[in-house]
């Protein structure tokens, strides 16, 4: 039963539980790998979580000269392999969403890998399991299809931006107003 991450952004209450969960997660060495953004800073209080969209055709992995970023069979784009990463930070530049973080001490890129040790066995990632407001959900494809049917996508595609910066992603996001072409991005 393949499940995906689904972000229902309008649910976000800005509690930073996902950040805390990621920070506390084993092997993360007290560094979180996800973000909580202000959607409209100084205008309203709406926040949105973002971990990594796990692109089908990830710019970070394609830009990596050492092929340190690999795509797992589940579709998750893994964090940089410690033994391969050369610390060139190409991925941080290539990613259109600004996901990869860089550790200057270890000279290593680290990013969300969908908690691959959990999600490869069907267990939801830490952020999804702690989210109190159902913003980050762990859904099967049929459930996501049902979610998708709630929207009139004017391009018929489920992408993260219009016009999309990248191709399709494994993490499905609902972008209220944007996918419908009602709200302008900029």
């Amino acid at each position, binding site marked *: 039963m393949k499940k995906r991450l689904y972000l229902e952004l309008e649910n976000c209450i800005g509690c930073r539980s996902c950040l805390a969960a990621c920070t506390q997660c084993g092997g993360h060495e007290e560094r979180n790998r996800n973000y909580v953004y202000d959607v409209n800073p100084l205008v309203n209080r709406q926040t949105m979580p973002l971990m990594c969209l796990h692109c089908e055709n990830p710019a970070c992995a394609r830009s*990596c000269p050492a092929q340190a970023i*690999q*795509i797992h*069979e589940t579709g998750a784009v893994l964090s940089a392999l410690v033994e391969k990463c050369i610390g060139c930070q190409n991925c941080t530049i290539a990613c259109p969403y600004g996901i990869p973080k860089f550790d200057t001490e270890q000279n290593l890129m680290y990013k969300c890998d969908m908690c691959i040790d959990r999600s490869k066995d069907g267990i939801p990632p830490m952020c999804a399991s702690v989210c109190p407001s159902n913003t980050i959900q762990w859904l099967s494809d049929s459930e996501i299809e049902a979610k998708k049917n709630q929207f009139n996508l004017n391009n018929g595609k489920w992408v993260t931006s219009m016009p999309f910066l990248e191709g399709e992603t494994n993490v499905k996001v609902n972008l209220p107003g944007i996918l419908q072409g009602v709200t302008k991005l900029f």
Partner: protein
Amino acid sequence: MTDKNNKIPFDEDNYTHNINRNNERKLDRRGFMKTLVGAAGVFAVSSLPWGAVAAKELAGLSDKKYPKQKITDIKSIAVGDAVDFAFPGEHDSAILVRLSENKYVAYQNACTHLRCPVFWDKKEEEMICPCHHGKFNVNTGVPFAGPPRRPLPEIVVKVENGAVYAVRVKRYEA
């Protein structure tokens, strides 16, 4: 949109670039280098038994014992004559030269150049190899003419009750 470089799956299954975890090369560059080093290590370790064999051989050379072997009776070899024999094995041809009443020398007579049989030239009083005219000093076995560079291996002889016996082969010292 159609001319965008975003075909899925992106066709990059090649030796220089692969980002799919399941397409990871079994033998990447680092693995190849590790294999080389490992093979070198295996070769190095597997040559050790030969080293042990060689060490054993070298250690045992000085006191290699052969059963003493009768070469000839004193009566049947005149002073200045030579007789051929084989020592220690049946294919190790050797030569015994009687230089004076009580002085016998014996050498393994395979020439140290290309192993032709060296014979005793009574007239010139030297040992000659017929193939390339290598010449050996009969008293020491040391070559003094022709291609051979190393002395003939000397055989220690001893005279007992009217016969000459070969006892052992002197170890060759470079």
